[in-house]
């Protein structure tokens, strides 16, 4: 059984990582092809790191994902606390169902519905275009929210109600009981929500495709535009760099948190 599950893990991970391995290999290609290696070189890395448009798109994506992840985590955590305390089942379900719409709805529908809202509003206000950083940020917060709530709300529901009540019986104010008892208990859910919101936003292409304008280009939009023309290993070089940065961050985070655990 042990061996069988190890073999199974190996197969799944080969499946999940083979495109990434291909990407990394070809990013070192000396030639212009993305299908065949003709030698090793760093030319695509040099080219990417001197390309202002790409670097700018990368910066834009970082700013957008961070802001949208923070705002949606804050809104979503507050919302989860509120939703869990709505007594009337019908109202609670109504709020939950509306919240889940962007998750249940295909991204493409969320994207075009927001696009129609922005386009219509711009027309009504007589502005040329409402699509830019603002529309992207609104869109990203909106589609991240249900994922944050989905990770936080079950944690709140898992918490035995009598625990915060006990804290209050022992003299905590409701606020203290929330910050000292409930928040530490639900914090893994909040962290998961934050990471998910950031990942989704960083990786999003579909909704951004419909809600971004010419004034603010994210990385995925930039990559899509590049792929439409012709694919050079340069894009792979860029993705490899992102991959390495992300992997380092996650490793550092894991090391820190495991040391943290040991110290306690």
């Amino acid at each position: 059984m042990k061996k069988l599950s190890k073999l199974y893990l190996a197969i799944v991970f080969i499946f999940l990582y083979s495109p990434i391995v291909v990407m990394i290999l070809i990013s070192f290609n000396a030639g212009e092809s993305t299908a065949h290696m003709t030698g090793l070189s760093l030319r695509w890395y040099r080219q990417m790191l001197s390309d202002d448009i790409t670097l700018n798109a990368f910066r834009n994506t970082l700013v957008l994902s961070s802001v949208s992840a923070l705002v949606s985590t804050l809104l979503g955590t507050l919302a989860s606390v509120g939703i869990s305390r709505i007594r009337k089942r019908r109202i609670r379900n109504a709020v939950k169902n509306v919240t889940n719409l962007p998750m249940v709805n295909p991204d493409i529908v969320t994207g075009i519905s927001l696009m129609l809202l922005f386009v219509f509003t711009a027309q009504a206000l007589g502005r040329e275009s409402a699509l830019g950083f603002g529309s992207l940020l609104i869109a990203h917060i909106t589609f991240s929210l249900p994922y944050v709530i989905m990770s936080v709300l079950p944690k709140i529901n898992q918490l035995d109600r009598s625990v915060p009540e006990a804290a209050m019986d022992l003299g905590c104010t409701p606020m203290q009981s929330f910050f000292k008892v409930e928040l530490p208990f639900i914090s893994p859910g909040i962290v998961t929500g934050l990471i998910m919101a950031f990942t989704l936003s960083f990786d999003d292409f579909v909704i951004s495709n419909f809600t971004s304008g010419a004034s603010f280009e994210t990385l995925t939009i930039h990559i899509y535009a590049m792929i439409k023309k012709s694919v050079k290993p340069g894009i792979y070089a860029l993705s490899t760099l992102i991959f390495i940065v992300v992997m380092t961050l996650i490793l550092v985070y894991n090391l820190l948190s495991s040391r943290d655990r040991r110290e306690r």
Partner: protein
Amino acid sequence: MSNRRNLAAYPHIVWSALFIVAPMLFVLYYTFTDGAGDPTLENITRIGTSNYLLIFLNSLCMALIATVICLVIAYPLAYIFSRMRADTQSIMMVLIMLPLWMNFLITTYSWMTLLEDTGIINTLLGYIGIGPLHMINTPGAVITGMVFCFLPYMVMPIYSVMAGIDPRIIEAAKDLGCSDRDVLFRVVMPMSISGVISGITMVFVPSISTFYISQKLGGGTFQLIGDTIESYFTGTAINFHFGAALSMVLMIMILISMGVMNRFGDENEERGLLK
């Protein structure tokens, strides 16, 4: 106390009204109007009279297959993870999440390199005397791409529910005479239904509406509903009104299937152990 805590949900409710409900109303508005803003039903009737129904059916089949494959792969995976040491568990989840950080435009393109007739897989197969197999531009290639892109979304919710199961419950089941098999089928499975349901939602919806994967790995040999909708919003033949109508139909189709699923899930949850 409870009244004041309700207030916490208000910013979110306002946000939802402005950016979830209102945009939906705009989809409705565009669906039932023409270019001049006059009311019309033509956009809806056009869907029923042409090959659009076939496109819908095609997309539905592909998405169902991809979802089932994801579930079959993810469920044992999540179970294996949930029984590992805590440290290993978090490393495994990081490894599952990492591919999500790679832009799917890029990884889909990598899959092209892998699946091509003269691609990497066929080269490798050639060494052991098999093939070449024709894989690119087939429905199988598109489904491979979908499973790759959406598998982590199936693993995450199932794993998090399984990891949340109190180990004492499993111990208790064993004390009461359950075998490992019984533990899996009679304790873990009923308790993980909610994770499975969110996993199915998270895979099925993006699968049925994808438009990039099918273009690249399907090679334009067949059109999915996502491709069709996108072409009316960003392509050369822009028609917001007909595009909105197609999205409406897609949305209703998904909402109905999810409604059925959630009803099924609620019933199961109420019969569960920890409610």
